[in-house]
């Protein structure tokens, strides 16, 4: 009988403690300090230095996320893409946008304790922007340019103009909420809280980042509690949500497109390119291949960014495609469509394109290739969409894959000018837009206050404002 009493007491206490623990996770609303956020990503980022440019868009996107943990900029963008104070508290310019003055925030320190001064800022920005004349003034800095720079604020909000100091030992120092505690290029990074961050110490003690993790491994780690924040491929987002995972989907931040290789015989016939473009069923790609993890794209820029994307029809026109293809004589050889061998999503899309093309008589051969291989007629490309402005977004696409700038009119800022350029690119059929994709993240239950800024504001994950909901026992 005694044993029964003891068992009862133990069982009741355990049940109660479990109940109590469950309650604890769900309760407090104010931020909790402490804990380590475990992040996994597929990209292997080799350097955090904003001055180092990376060729891979997916790596660049991942790098941008990490950069914002450590480095600040003079300006940040709000949810609507409007400039807001960051290290600069105010600014003004002359009437022709050639002369800008920026007032700097006071009492800001780098992560080694060195004060942020106008001299340091001027030097850093001058190195990153050799075409500007930048001088330190008593209140801050002055930026002068021989030509108007009306979008200077957007430029200063980009990671390119992050305020980065190189310590004598080569390490990188910023004024952001986290400092780099460990950096193993392409493999692992540890960021620790910077107590004297001008916006206040972040709630997390540290962030551990594992790079080079496959999407499958990331999802497994999330499910078994070994990760708090993982990337979810867009085509798996729906399944992950249905299985009970906590997923978050961003705005449309990527364009998946077919990019023809200039000079390849199979890609040089405009009729073939147009026939392929008109044969693709983008709705099926978005709904079935991507499991509604994307939106059909007839344009380069999403409707919500440009406002005119409806002018670019996304529906297939099989009859016209067949007609165009039949005009080509002799029949062209099979078109080799390369895709990233490490990306299952690209493979599925390439195979679907081949099926659509076959319906119009075009033979497309999907091929998993490394980017160094030059034997593809076209590539599947995933292009990052710069939400700071339609102009910047199109300029970035032009820079990445567009036709030689000589064939395009100078890119203006008005909607008509941007549309004209986009129309010119699309009508060459050298770049065939397929779908716009979102970023999807899987989150553990402990992650609280998850509120990344909008893509228009740069898509920063705002991990400095995240806290962990589980009792860590070390609230300080």
């Amino acid at each position, binding site marked *: 009988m005694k044993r029964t009493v003891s068992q009862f007491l133990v069982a009741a206490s355990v049940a*109660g403690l479990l*109940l*109590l623990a469950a309650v604890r996770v769900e*309760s*407090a*609303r104010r931020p909790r300090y402490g804990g380590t956020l475990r992040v996994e990503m597929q990209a292997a980022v080799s350097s955090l230095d904003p001055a180092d440019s990376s060729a891979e868009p997916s790596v660049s996107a991942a790098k941008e996320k990490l950069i914002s943990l450590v480095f600040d900029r003079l300006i940040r963008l709000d949810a609507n893409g409007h400039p807001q104070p960051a290290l600069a508290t105010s600014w003004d310019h002359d009437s022709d946008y050639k002369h800008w003055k920026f007032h700097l925030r006071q009492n800001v320190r780098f992560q080694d304790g060195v004060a942020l001064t106008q001299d340091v800022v001027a030097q850093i920005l001058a190195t990153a922007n050799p075409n500007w004349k930048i001088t330190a003034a008593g209140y801050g800095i002055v930026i002068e340019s021989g030509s108007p720079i009306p979008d200077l604020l957007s430029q200063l909000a980009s990671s390119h103009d992050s305020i980065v100091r190189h310590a004598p030992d080569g390490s990188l120092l910023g004024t952001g909420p986290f400092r780099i505690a460990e950096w193993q290029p392409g493999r692992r990074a540890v960021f620790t809280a910077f107590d004297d961050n001008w916006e206040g*110490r972040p709630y997390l003690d540290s962030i551990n980042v594992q790079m080079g993790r496959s999407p499958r491994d990331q999802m497994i780690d999330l499910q078994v509690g070994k990760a708090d924040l993982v990337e979810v491929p867009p085509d798996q987002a729906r399944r992950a949500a249905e299985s009970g995972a906590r997923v978050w989907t961003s705005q449309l931040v990527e364009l998946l497109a077919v990019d023809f290789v200039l000079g390849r015989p199979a890609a040089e016939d405009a009729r073939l390119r147009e026939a392929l473009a008109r044969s693709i069923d983008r709705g099926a790609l978005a709904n079935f291949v991507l499991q509604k993890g994307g939106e059909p794209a007839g344009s380069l820029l999403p409707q919500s960014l440009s406002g005119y994307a409806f002018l670019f029809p996304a529906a297939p026109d099989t009859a016209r495609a067949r007609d165009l293809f039949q005009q080509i004589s002799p029949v062209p050889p099979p078109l080799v469509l390369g895709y990233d061998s490490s990306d299952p999503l690209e493979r599925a899309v390439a195979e679907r394109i081949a099926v659509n093309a076959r319906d119009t008589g075009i033979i497309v051969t999907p091929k998993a290739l490394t980017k160094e291989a030059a034997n593809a007629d076209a590539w599947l490309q995933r292009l990052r969409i710069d939400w700071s402005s339609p102009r910047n977004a199109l300029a970035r696409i032009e820079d990445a894959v567009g036709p030689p700038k000589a064939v395009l009119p100078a890119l203006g800022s008005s909607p008509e000018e941007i549309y004209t350029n986009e129309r010119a690119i699309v009508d060459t059929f050298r770049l065939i837009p397929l779908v716009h994709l979102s970023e999807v993240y899987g989150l553990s239950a402990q992650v609280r206050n998850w509120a990344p800024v909008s893509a228009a504001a740069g898509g920063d994950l705002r991990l400095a404002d995240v806290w962990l909901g589980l009792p860590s026992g070390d609230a300080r």
Partner: protein
Amino acid sequence: MRPFYRLIPPIRAMAFFFLSLSLSCTASAQDFDRAAHDLAARIAAAAGSGAKVFFDMRDLSSLGPSEAARARQSLEAELRKAGLYLVKAPPSDAVVHVMLAENVQEYLWVAEILRGGTEQMEMVAIPRAPTQAQSPPAPSLVLHKQFVWRQSAPILDFALLPPAADGLPRLFVLEPERVAAYRFDQSRWQLQEDAPIQHARPWPRDLRGRMNPAGDALQVSLPGVSCSAFARRAFVLQCAEDPKSEWRFSETGESATFSSVRNFFSGVTAGSGLPQTALPPFFSAAFLKSPESTRTILSGLDGQALLYEDLPQPVATFTGWGSDIAAIGSGCGAAWQVFATRPGDWTQPDGMQAYEIIERQAVAVTQPLDFDGPVMALWPASDGKSASVVVRNLKTGQYEAYSLSISCSR
């Protein structure tokens, strides 16, 4: 065998635990009478009819003293009916220790019968029945929300002051970098003047602040910094580093030390009647006054609110509340009510509800009130009869100030 008395500590711990979780249930008097009859019969069978029995009983349940006494009387009566003679001290034929405990579903009589070198355990469960406490009465008080002010800059606290010499009401708004003074003139609040807040160190990321008007003076408390001003003269804030950082909750003297680098109080309170021993850190506190004592509720960092009476050990735990609470003396109902926010985080809208503490249980006395965003600050107002609430509207991104009060009838 383990002596029965050694079970007392775990039983006490367990009882306290369940006390924390499930105070809202009790059993009917008939249930206790039936259980007492059943247990008495078992004890009599073990001790032997006609035996002299030394009997004692300890109450480790959440029953109130009067209910526990009644239960004891019922059991004693049933033991006598069963033919036992109860003696006040050994020697006796048998010793019977009875514990009144409880778990989440039921109360539990546990009897240890010692006779002739053997011991026997008997248990009788008493199901909890819904009572007035479990099903609180329909809220009888009404919670009122009065909009005061909105702005895009964060609001840490605000204070509405009665008309000054010019006959105009005044509003002081505490922001991270300044205190702004407004006058209600021509049907709207107009900025009269403002004063910057000097501070050397960066503010904590979850910055909190408190503003206590007292007559013409204004006391401003921020993490590691305190400022003072005279509201009727030229509005100048005198700020100084204040590592001790003692914040006043209300005009009745309760105060606590606020961390200079975090977002919580370090746990030392003054004016609450509690010994200034090491209480756990907390986000917010509510002080319920009565002529006899002050009851204190601390909203802990783990999401639980702890009720203290006169001792440094909590006597009850409330779950399901958010981090911010405040008490006001409305004069309605039990005179004092506690405002409590909801659990969640800053991505979710918040709400507010008023509670009264009845027999160590939190009983909702108003319908909940919804906000369009998280509550960022909740403080008792200087009149002691209302509370100041700041909400960050998730739709507009603006900070909104409201005055919350309670009226006695619908």
